[in-house]
């Protein structure tokens, strides 16, 4: 038993000298493959993991607490900090939850832009996944190529909203900005580029790569029952052969009008999930290509018309007295949604991202719970890692695609 004093402080859960033959090691919280601040306490028998204990909370910022102390519009930029790889999907999930609570719908043009941004963010996130996953496993060149394409996507995001990581590009009730000139043709070029690179670079480098297959096949096998029980969603669930995509099953935004497939992998292992991510990128490109012509058919309105909750457009505020008064009240006091509760799931690149909002009719949410996919995927690690070898731990963490901004919140 440890006898902590000032010179030798207390180490949580650590007991290096043990009676049996196992060894306890700390994986993280500062480990390049831990994808953030994950601390894994691993008990090893030789090289085999006997027990794994994911310890989280190193990035806890109290975002749910902050939500209770901020008006609804104030909180929106904070959601960027959840899944900081694909911020727009968080902004959108939150905005959609509030919109559903208010009972408003974004205008058509905003919907087209939002869906396009969501899919662009899915591409950014999946490119990031391929890059870091390959880097973790040891294929460094893929990292360089994938980050090159991700850079183009981030440039597109920057052209749209001015930010590369913390986008805040969605507002409650619509989007703040229209698409800049020439953006759509750049988007088209980007889609062509990624499609070409998917086929000729990533697939060529990885798909039939002997080492890549040896490292990924039959590693991190999640049975469909486990995937359901552990609350796996998104690619983790579809990687276990269960075809459930919220975009398809409970369509939101424009997904019901779009033609796309839900790729499913039934091998249940990391290699299947990698193939799934690649296939999802192709589907995202397909969706974006369908959305580009839809943009031209829309009216220029960007924000929903709901004077009780949403400020009028800037021109009206600057010209009409009543719009200015309402805007002043909305900025200083915040909107007051109806009393009630709502849970809205969306399909973020990582899985099901949902916001549960409990409103008491105040300008501050009474309770906001962010259902983050990575939180549950981290929980799964304690069972998934047992019995694997230490070299596969990195592969498995990589293939769960967790991001700690939303695990700790």
């Amino acid at each position, binding site marked *: 038993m440890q006898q902590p004093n*000032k010179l030798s402080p207390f180490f*949580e859960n650590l007991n290096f000298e043990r009676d049996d033959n196992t060894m306890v090691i700390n994986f993280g919280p500062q480990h390049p493959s831990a994808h953030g601040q994950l601390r894994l306490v691993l008990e090893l028998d030789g090289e085999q993991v006997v027990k794994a204990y994911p310890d*989280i*909370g190193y990035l*806890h910022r*109290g975002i*749910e*607490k*902050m939500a*209770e*102390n*901020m008006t609804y519009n104030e909180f929106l930029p904070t959601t960027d900090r959840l899944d900081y790889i694909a911020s727009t999907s968080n902004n959108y999930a939150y905005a959609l939850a509030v919109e*559903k*609570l208010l*009972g408003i719908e974004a205008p058509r043009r905003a919907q087209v832009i939002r869906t396009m941004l969501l899919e662009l963010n899915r591409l950014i996130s999946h490119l990031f996944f391929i890059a870091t996953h390959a880097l973790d496993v040891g294929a460094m060149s893929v990292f360089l190529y994938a980050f090159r394409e991700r850079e183009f996507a981030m440039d597109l995001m920057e052209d749209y909203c001015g930010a590369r990581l913390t986008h805040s590009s969605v507002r409650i009730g619509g989007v703040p900005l229209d698409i800049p000139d020439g953006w759509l043709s750049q988007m088209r070029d980007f889609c062509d580029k990624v499609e070409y690179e998917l086929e000729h670079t990533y697939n060529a480098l990885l798909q039939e790569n002997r080492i890549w297959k040896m490292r990924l096949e039959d590693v991190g096998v999640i049975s469909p029952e*486990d995937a*359901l*029980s*552990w*609350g796996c*969603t998104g690619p983790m669930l579809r990687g276990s052969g*269960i075809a*459930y995509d919220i975009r398809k*099953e*409970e369509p939101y935004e424009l997904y019901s009008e779009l033609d796309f497939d839900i790729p499913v992998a039934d091998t249940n292992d990391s290699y299947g999930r990698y193939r799934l991510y690649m296939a999802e990128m192709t589907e995202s490109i397909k969706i974006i290509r369908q959305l580009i012509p839809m943009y031209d058919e829309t009216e220029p309105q960007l924000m929903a018309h709901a004077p009780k909750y949403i400020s009028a457009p800037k021109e009206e505020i600057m010209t009409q007295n009543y719009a200015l008064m309402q805007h002043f009240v909305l900025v200083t*006091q*915040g909107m*007051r949604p*109806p*009393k*009630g*509760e*709502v*849970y809205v*799931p969306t399909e973020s690149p990582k899985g*099901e991202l*949902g916001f*549960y909002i*409990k409103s*008491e*009719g*105040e*300008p*501050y949410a*009474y*309770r906001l*719970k962010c*259902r983050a996919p990575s*939180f*549950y995927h*981290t*929980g*799964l690690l*304690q*069972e998934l890692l047992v019995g694997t070898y230490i070299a596969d731990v990195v592969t498995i963490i990589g293939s769960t695609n967790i991001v700690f901004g939303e695990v*700790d*919140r």
Partner: protein
Amino acid sequence: MRKYVPKDSVQKKAYYTDRFHVVPSTPREDVSTDEVFAKHLETLSAKVEVKSARIELGSMVVEINHKDNYKAVEILRDECGYAQLTEMSAVDYLAKDGNFEVFYQLLNLKEAKRMRLVMRIEQGLAVESVVPLFKSANFAEREMFDMFGIVSNNHPLMKRIIMPDDWEGHPLLKTYPLQGDEFASWYEVDKIFGKDAREAIGPENRDPSRIDRYDTKRFSRVGYEVPFGADISEGETKTEIEYSKTFLVDYTKGSGKQLDKRK
């Protein structure tokens, strides 16, 4: 006279509410309007006492007694096809009703239906863990304990998950201030330097927007720059602003070294 601040909720309040403001409610429908939900509710209410049920914004909300939670979740999983527990947590109603609301968010993948099982539980009582039914409750119940102090019985490892193990207080309670309490302000000082160092270091500043006028280690005033850490409680002297000078070098004559002429 000092303004009265209620102690049971220290969260931010609306600074002004119109006297005539009427709080509307979200549209609520009867469960019988949706036949799938009605069927599920019928199965559930046959075995468990249902206190109230409604459909709110597309998902069914069923309230039960907190003692029936395990049984209800089991029936919903095995007989109604809710194969996934996507979320569970609590809402603090201690100030208003003297209890917590615990909710389970369930998903039926086959029929693409979502429902929420809610129950009220008094402070100090424990809920029955649903980990044997859904493993996703493992982390969720730990988080609920960490944030609200609601213990789950028969949980495999009932300890804090996000906050440190030796933390005091449960951060998502309405009585817990946003900036942290007294314990929070001394936690890192005690942990790193020991309690003896409290006087020398002082409590942690947990207000990120606070600016200390006399703190010359983190702040400086343009035109009144002083050395790092200098004491300015007596005031500081004005310093002239020195602009950096850019020396313009004429490369066209003199050295004659021009890049494009190099081989």
